[in-house]
């Protein structure tokens, strides 16, 4: 990825397999990384959304599979998500993915009532 130097030339998201899928230890490490890598600065504490979208609502702009989330972190996305592929190893990115996928999706009904 880094050698290629072009973010979009990485493997397709549907061919990526999360080696840590469902692993609680990996998710806990991912939660710490979410703070230490400053993800929370944009996506908010608990990934509930701040300057950048919520990642805990079970809804995804660019796909919510493990592979699609991995790709978003590694390659970045057009409206401001930086590419972290040169900063974070695939192992670290999978921990972040595992953390985000571990967040309980709220039983949100799409109606807000006062």
């Amino acid at each position, binding site marked *: 990825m880094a050698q290629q130097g072009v973010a979009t030339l990485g493997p397709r998201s549907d061919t990526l397999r999360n080696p840590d899928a469902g692993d609680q230890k990996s998710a806990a490490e991912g939660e710490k990384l979410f703070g230490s890598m400053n993800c929370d600065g944009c996506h908010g504490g608990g990934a509930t*959304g701040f*300057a950048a979208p*919520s990642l805990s609502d079970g*809804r995804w*702009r660019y796909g919510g599979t493990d592979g699609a989330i991995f790709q978003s972190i590694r390659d970045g996305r057009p409206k401001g998500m930086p590419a972290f592929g040169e900063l974070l190893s695939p192992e670290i990115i999978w921990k972040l993915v595992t953390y985000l996928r571990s967040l309980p999706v709220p039983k949100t009904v799409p109606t807000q009532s006062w």
Partner: protein
Amino acid sequence: MQRTRRRGRTCTSPGKRVRLLVMRLLPALAALLALLQAAAAAQAVPDDGRWTMPGKDYASTRYSGLDQLTPLNVQRLKPVWNFSTGVLRGHEGQPLVVDNTMYVVTPYPNVLYAFDLTQPDYPLKWKYRPNVDPSALGMACCDAINRGAFYADGKIVYNLLDGHTVAVDAASGREIWNVKSAELSEGETTPMAPIVVRDRVIVGPSGGEFGIYGWAKGFDLATGRLVWTARNAGSDSATLTRPGVFKPFYDKGANLGLTTWANDAWKTGGAPVWGWLSYDAGLDLVYYGVGNPGPYNPEQRPGDNKWTNSVLARRPGDGALVWAYQFTPHDNWDYDSNAEMILADLTIGGGVRKVLVHFDKNGFAYTIDRTNGEVLVAEPFVSLNWAKRVDLTTGRPVLDSSKFTGDSKGNVKYICPSLEGGKSPVSAAAYSPRTRLFYVSTVNLCMDYHAEVKTRIRGTPFIGASTPYVAGPGGHMGAFIAWDAARGRKLWEIKEKYPVWSGVVVTAGDVAFYGTLDGWLKAVNARTGQPLWKFKVGSGIVGAPITYRGPDGRQYVAVYAGIGGDWSLLSGDLNADDPADMRDPADFIKDLARYTSQGGMVWIFAL
């Protein structure tokens, strides 16, 4: 024609009648003359009816000499026109009106519209659509806002979000120059409105939440060429601090921008410039406020951290620093000082003093001698508890140690004001030389502050504090107030349910206008604070109303609707344009989305 002549013939001895009329009206004419003289004393130059720069004038008074709107007739104010900007983000800032043309800059993607006010329906003369890097959306801390443009020498000069500054021909919309002014990859964005003084365009960056190394830069108005760069921290050479030129009132010593930081923390210490700039032509000084030090965890940056949270006075020509004053040394609470510096001449202690008046996020209103930086008055304009007072002999706040924050302090409870500020620097206040009062949108929020250690990663947020808010004393979250800056006291206030986040305009008709987060534009009597009129504009107001004289000679009021800025992050559920971003409302402001949502509109009102 015929009818007119016939009427003329029926009116016998017109000369005599006029003389009689003049005799009867003499006392009224004398009174009018006295009023005009008073107005002339208050404002030497008659108002030209234009609005050419963000703060109306170089003193940033946001005072208009137009007087057709008064407390007696403003109830009849009606919308006469509106226009969707096509952009949903926070519409901060204000339109400009020059040569019967209204200029509107939108939030990202920073479209510039030029409306022809001489034509029915105000059709566009042109629109200018710059190519702005969308990755800037990920570097803007607090929504993709823009605070407006400056008109000078036939050019509209403004900043694009992605660290570019442009000059556009005001008549044709042709781009004259487009220069890179900031480094986006370092976390620098440029939503502020530049100031133009003679041939110098002065610009600064946002990025206090991204560990930038803050600065102001002076560009050449004709070409966009960079002339000087002045850092807001670091060595004397970097901050353009020269012996014999720099004469601060309180501080002593060389390299204060270095020696007041441990561990070289100034290199990523923030010190952004995202507010409003003022200029005193007699003193040839530009004044601007500097924002917070980064990160928010103060234990990572021991020392005063000069010149964060300060006002700097510089020569516009070469950027030389002439004096500086730090409002909040070693900031523990994200109390940026980017709010406007309003220049006025006030009678204090029996003499007239050239002052600047500044309503800081830290909750104190400062009246400062603008020739040298001496603090003359510093009093709380909102509830605050982080400091007891400001010591005028040292210029420093007297702190309450129970409100110190840092990663070793854990979660520090109930600090007032919150980091939204007692007033947001976004919402520029106004000053009327007629009433000698300042009109201020204020915020009544308090916060807990839980700091943690953060590592800077270039181009990512460098914050390190969790800061939930609650409403301050009284339970209302905002107020619109009138402030006497000579004495440091509040004259009256209008409490508002939500934080008041709009700029203000005050007029020679003694009417003040402000807007609310739930989308009302309001007019009040500037002398008494009596509410006079309101109109719901469709989305919360975070911009600043202006007033101008139209080509038909009538007085108009214009304002943006379009909630956003901090409120797009804080309130949780205002945004409706992304089905993949669902948030709960913020605990402290659960029902704001019941009354407003995003939407960018330009509104114009008249009698």
